[in-house]
C-alpha cells in the first residue's frame, strides 16, 4: 500500500514539476519558455508556483503520505489560488487588479494567455486537490470519484459559470470602461426593450415583449399539436401511427433554420405557393411570412415533435385501470376524458409548454431567417455583437434578460412540476386496456395533425428536391448537380484528391468537431450521471443543479459569453477548434446526464458495491459493471451529442472563424446572401451524412453486442 501511495504522489507532483520547469507557460511560447524561465527573466510572480511545485515534489518523496500531511494541503491550495490570481490579475496589457502593479513593477508589461504549461499545471493541481480531499474522507475515500467531482466542478466553473459571470459583468461596464450600476439601469430600461407600441397601435413592440409573445404563442400551439399527435398515437386506431413517429424524429436531425428556408421558398414573396395563389386569386404577393407568422409557423413545426414525445410518455404512463374505474362507475367516454385523463395529463402539458417556451426563446435560426423586422432577444444579441455596432454591454444586458426568462421557466419546470407529477404506473402489473379517446376529440386531433403532416412533407420535399434543381425559388425545375458541385467539387490528379468546393472546409471542420465532442460529451455526461446517482458527497445538490442549469442557457448567450470570456488572457482561445469542441461538450452535457441517470435508476446499486468489496476502485467499477449495463444510454448520449454538434447554430455562429467554419454557419451565410439552392443542397448533404454516421454507429455497437452474447438466448436481467 505504501508504495502505491508514494507513486500517486509522484504522478501529480511530477506532472506539476514538468509543466512548470519544462513546458511553455504562455500561449504560443517555445519549449522551455517555462514558468521558471519566465520567472527568472522578470515575471517574478511566477516564481511562487515554482516553489509550490518543488515543495510538493519534495513532500511526496520525503513524507510518509503527503496527502494527509498538512503541508500538502496548504501547498496545493496556495498553488491553485496563486495560479488563478496571477492569471486573472495580470492581463495582456498589465495589471487588471489594483495593487498588483505596485507589488510587481514588471507586471505593467502584461502577460499573454495560458499555454500548455499553465494548463497542465492547473490539471495537476486539481488532481492533487482531489487526492488531498479523498484522503480526508471525501467521497468515502474513493479517489476516482473525488477526482471526477473536483474535475467536473472545475471544468463547469471554467466553461459554464465563469463565461456567464464575465458576460453579466459586461452589462455594468460603461462605454468608457468604468464599472457601475448606471449603464445597466439605462440599458435595461430602454424603450426598445419594453415598448408595447404594437398593441396600442403606436409603433413597434420592444424585443422582450416580442420574445415573450412569440414564446407563449409558439408554446401554446406546439403543445396543442403535440397533444393531438400523442392522442392519435397512444389512444386511437389511427392508421398512420408509424408515419407520425417517423416525422417526430426528423427535427432532431434537421438544422434549425432549414425549416425557415423551406418556408421562404414556399411562402416568401416569390415563393412557390405565394405565386400560385397570386395567379389563381389575383391577390398581390406580400411579405406576410416575414415576422411573427413565419417564425411562429417554423417554430410550431419544429417543436411539436418535442412536445409530442413528452406527452406521449405521459399518456402511456397513465394507468389504464383508472380510466376503466371511471367507466365502470358510469362515466361516458367524454366525461372520463375530462375528469380522469385530462387532469392526470396536466403536469405533462405544463412541462411540454415550458419546454417549448424555453426552446422558442433560445431559438436563433428561425428568427434570423424569417424575422424580418420582428426582433427577438436572440437575434438582437447577435446583431449587438456581430453587426456594425459592436456593443458587448448591450449584448450582455439582453443576455441577462434572456437568461432570466429561460432560467425562470426552467426553475418552474424542475421545482414546481417536479412535485406535481402523478406517477400512476407502479411496479405492479395492472392488466387494463387503454381507453380510446372519444370520437369528437379524435376528429379534432386529426384536423390538427393533417395540416402538420402536409406541411412537414412539403418542407422536406423542398429540402430533398430544392438542392438538385436549377432554382426552386423561381420554380425552374430542371435537374442539376450544379449547386452540389459548387459546394463539393474536387479533382483527382497525380497529387491526390484536391478539394475545391466552397463547402469542404466547413464540412470537414464540422465532422471533426462532432467526432471529437460526441465521445467527450457522452463520457463526461455519463460520469456526471454516475456521480449524481451513486456518490454521496458534500454539495451534491448544488452540483446537480449546476450541471442541469447549463441546459437552460440559450445558445446565443453561451456564444456571447464565450466571446466575452475567452477572447482575452489568461484563457485566450477564440478562433480555435478547441473552443468549438468545448462549447458543444458543455452545452450537450445535460442530455447525456439525463440518459445516464435514467439508466442507472434501473440498476441495483449493490452490484457496484459487490465490485468494490472485491477490490475494484471507482474507475474499475464504472468500467466493469456500470458501463456494460447502461450501454443503450451511452449510445443514445453519443448519437444525440454527435447530431446536435452537427446541426446547432446559435452558439457556434459566434465562435466560428475563417479557418474553422462550421457547416451550419456556412449555410447561414448562404441564406443571408439569398443563395437558397446552395443552402438547401448543403443541408440535405448534411442530413444524409448524419443519417449515415448514426447508422454506422448503430451498426458498430449492434454487432459488438451480438458478438459477445451470441450464446445467450434470453437477455440478462439484473439479479433480484
Amino acid at each position, binding site marked *: *500500500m505504501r508504495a502505491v501511495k508514494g507513486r500517486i504522489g509522484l504522478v501529480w507532483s511530477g506532472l506539476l514539476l514538468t509543466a512548470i520547469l519544462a513546458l511553455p507557460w504562455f500561449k504560443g511560447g517555445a519549449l522551455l519558455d517555462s514558468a521558471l524561465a519566465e520567472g527568472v527573466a522578470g515575471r517574478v510572480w511566477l516564481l511562487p508556483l515554482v516553489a509550490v511545485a518543488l515543495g510538493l515534489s519534495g513532500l511526496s518523496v520525503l513524507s510518509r503520505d503527503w496527502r494527509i500531511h498538512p503541508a500538502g494541503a496548504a501547498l496545493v491550495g496556495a498553488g491553485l489560488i496563486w495560479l488563478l490570481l496571477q492569471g486573472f490579475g495580470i492581463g495582456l496589457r498589465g495589471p487588471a487588479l489594483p495593487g498588483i502593479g505596485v507589488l510587481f513593477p514588471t507586471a505593467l508589461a502584461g502577460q499573454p494567455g495560458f499555454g500548455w504549461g499553465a494548463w497542465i499545471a492547473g490539471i495537476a493541481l486539481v488532481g492533487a486537490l482531489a487526492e488531498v480531499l479523498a*484522503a480526508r*474522507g471525501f467521497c*468515502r*475515500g*474513493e*479517489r476516482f470519484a473525488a477526482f471526477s467531482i473536483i474535475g467536473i466542478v472545475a471544468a463547469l466553473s471554467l466553461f459554464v459559470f465563469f463565461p456567464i459571470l464575465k458576460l453579466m459583468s459586461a452589462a455594468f461596464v460603461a462605454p468608457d470602461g468604468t464599472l457601475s450600476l448606471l449603464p445597466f439601469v439605462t440599458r435595461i430600461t430602454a424603450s426598445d426593450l419594453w415598448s408595447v407600441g404594437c398593441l396600442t397601435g403606436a409603433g413597434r413592440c420592444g424585443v422582450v415583449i416580442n420574445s415573450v409573445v412569440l414564446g407563449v404563442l409558439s408554446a401554446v400551439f406546439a403543445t396543442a399539436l403535440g397533444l393531438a399527435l400523442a392522442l392519435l398515437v397512444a389512444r386511437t386506431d389511427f392508421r398512420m401511427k408509424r408515419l407520425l413517429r417517423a416525422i417526430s424524429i426528423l427535427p432532431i436531425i434537421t438544422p434549425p433554420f432549414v425549416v425557415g428556408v423551406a418556408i421562404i421558398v414556399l411562402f416568401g414573396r416569390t415563393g412557390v405557393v405565394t405565386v400560385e395563389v397570386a395567379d389563381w386569386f389575383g391577390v398581390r404577393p406580400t411579405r406576410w411570412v416575414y415576422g411573427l407568422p413565419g417564425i411562429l409557423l417554423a417554430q410550431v413545426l419544429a417543436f411539436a415533435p418535442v412536445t409530442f414525445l413528452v406527452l406521449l410518455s405521459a399518456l402511456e404512463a397513465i394507468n389504464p385501470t383508472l380510466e376503466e374505474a371511471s367507466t365502470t362507475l358510469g362515466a361516458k367516454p367524454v366525461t372520463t376524458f375530462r375528469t380522469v385523463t385530462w387532469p392526470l395529463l396536466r403536469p405533462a402539458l405544463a412541462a411540454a409548454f415550458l419546454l417549448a417556451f424555453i426552446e422558442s426563446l433560445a431559438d436563433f435560426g428561425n428568427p434570423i431567417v424569417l424575422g424580418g423586422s420582428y426582433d427577438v432577444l436572440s437575434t438582437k444579441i447577435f446583431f449587438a455583437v456581430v453587426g456594425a455596432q459592436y456593443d458587448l454591454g448591450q449584448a450582455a444586458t439582453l443576455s441577462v434578460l434572456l437568461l432570466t426568462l429561460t432560467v425562470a421557466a426552467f426553475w418552474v419546470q424542475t421545482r414546481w412540476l417536479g412535485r406535481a407529477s402523478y406517477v400512476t404506473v407502479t411496479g405492479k402489473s395492472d392488466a387494463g386496456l387503454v381507453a380510446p379517446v372519444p370520437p369528437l376529440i379524435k376528429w379534432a386531433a386529426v384536423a390538427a395533425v393533417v395540416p402538420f403532416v402536409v406541411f412537414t412533407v412539403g418542407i422536406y420535399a423542398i429540402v430533398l428536391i430544392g438542392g438538385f434543381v436549377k432554382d426552386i425559388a423561381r420554380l425552374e425545375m430542371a435537374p442539376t448537380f450544379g449547386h452540389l458541385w459548387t459546394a463539393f467539387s474536387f479533382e483527382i490528379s497525380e497529387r491526390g484528391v484536391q478539394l475545391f468546393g466552397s463547402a469542404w472546409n466547413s464540412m470537414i471542420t464540422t465532422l471533426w468537431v462532432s467526432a471529437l465532442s460526441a465521445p467527450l460529451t457522452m463520457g463526461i455526461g455519463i460520469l456526471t450521471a454516475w456521480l449524481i446517482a451513486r456518490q454521496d458527497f458534500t454539495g451534491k445538490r448544488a452540483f446537480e443543479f449546476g450541471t442541469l442549469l447549463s441546459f437552460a442557457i440559450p445558445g446565443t448567450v453561451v456564444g456571447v459569453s464565450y466571446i466575452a470570456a475567452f477572447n482575452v488572457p489568461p484563457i485566450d482561445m477564440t478562433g480555435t477548434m478547441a473552443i468549438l469542441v468545448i462549447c458543444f461538450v458543455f452545452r450537450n452535457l445535460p442530455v447525456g446526464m439525463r440518459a445516464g441517470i435514467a439508466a442507472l435508476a434501473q440498476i*441495483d446499486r*449493490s*452490484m457496484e*458495491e*459487490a*465490485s*468494490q*468489496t*472485491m*477490490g*475494484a*476502485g471507482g474507475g*474499475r467499477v464504472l468500467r*466493469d*459493471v456500470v458501463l*456494460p*449495463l447502461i450501454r443503450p444510454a451511452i449510445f443514445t448520449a453519443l448519437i444525440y451529442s454527435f447530431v446536435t454538434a452537427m446541426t446547432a447554430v446559435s452558439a457556434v455562429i459566434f465562435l466560428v472563424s475563417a479557418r474553422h467554419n462550421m457547416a451550419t454557419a456556412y449555410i447561414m451565410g448562404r441564406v443571408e446572401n439569398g443563395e437558397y439552392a446552395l443552402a438547401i443542397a448543403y443541408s440535405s448533404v448534411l442530413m444524409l451524412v448524419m443519417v449515415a454516421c448514426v447508422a454506422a454507429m448503430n451498426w458498430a455497437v449492434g454487432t459488438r453486442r451480438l458478438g459477445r452474447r451470441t*450464446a*445467450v438466448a*434470453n437477455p*440478462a*436481467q*439484473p*439479479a*433480484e
Partner: protein
Amino acid sequence: MTETAIEFRSVVKRYGDATAVAGIDLSIAKGELVTFLGPSGCGKTTSLRLIAGLELPSEGQVFIAGRDVSRDPASARNVGMVFQSYALFPHMSVLDNVAYGPVIRGTAKAQAQEKAREILDQVGLGGLHQRLPAELSGGQQQRVAVARAIVQQPDVILFDEPLSNVDAKLRRKVREEIRSLQRRFGLTAVYVTHDQEEALAVSDRIVVMDRGRIAQVGTPADLYERPSTPFIADFIGDANLIRGEVAQGYFTAPGLSLPVTGPDGPATLSIRPERITLAPGGPDRVVTATYLGSRMEYMVAAQVGEMLVSRPIFEPRLAAGQDVSLHITHTDVSRVA
C-alpha cells in the same frame, strides 16, 4: 487467547442529523460467526457496511486483522460480501463473476479462473460455469454469491440478510450450508438479519442492536435464557414480563414469590412461555387455547397478570374457560430490570 479479527472502537456513524450508529465497541474473534440482530433501523446493516468500507465512520475506528482501516475505502480492504440481492453481475458468466475479484486484485486471468473453478466445485456448482446468473435458480445464485465472496480468502465474510430472497421452505437448508461452509473454511463471518430464529440457529454469538447501540452480546443460549433487558427478552422469542418488588432477596408480585439476585426495589422478571407449567384446577383461568400442530398455546389470566403459555402437544389439553394453576420456578426466570 484467541486472535481478534474485527474490532469496533467507539464507532459512530451519522447521516446529516440522523445517527445510524451511536457508539459501538465490539471485538470479533477469528473464525467466529457473529450475527447483528435487531429491528429495522437499529443500525445493523450500517455496522456491516462499516466493516465492508461501503461507509466510513464519522467517529471512532474500525480494525480488520489488527489494521486500522477507518479511512480505507472498500476496495482497499480484504472483505467478502454476500448481498441481499446477491448482486451478481448479469452480464458475466458464473465463472467470470467468481473470478472477478482475483482478476481485480492482479491475479492472471487463467489462474483466477482456476481458483474460481475450485471454489465453484466446492459449493456444488461444478457444471454451471458458463451460465449467466439469470439462468440459475435462486438457491444456485446464492451459492455463486457465496463462492464469489470467499474466493479471495477474505479477512472476513459479510452476509447482509442472505436468506431474505430464499423460499421459506429452503431457508433451513441454505442456512445450514452457509454455516458448514463457514466452518469448513474457518472464516470469520458477520451476519445481519432481523429474523431471531435465523440468528439463533446460525450464530456463535449474537449482537442485539437497538437504536444504534448494542443492547446485549452473547451466545444464542445466553440471549434466549438470560436476556438482560425487557427489549431483548421481547425481541428474541416470546417473553412474559412480570413487574414486582424485590426485598431481602425475594421478588414478590401478586400470587408469586421467588428468590432472585440483585438490588432491592422495583424489578421486572422475564419468563419464556414454554417454561411455565399448568395444572388443572386453581385460581387462574385459561382465556384462549390455540392448537398449533407442534404445540398448544394458552393465554392464561393469572394472578400475576395475563401470561402466554406454550405446552407440548402430548400433554393433556386444556380448554378455554378452564380453571388452572400456573407454576413458575425461580431457575427459569431472568431479571431484566
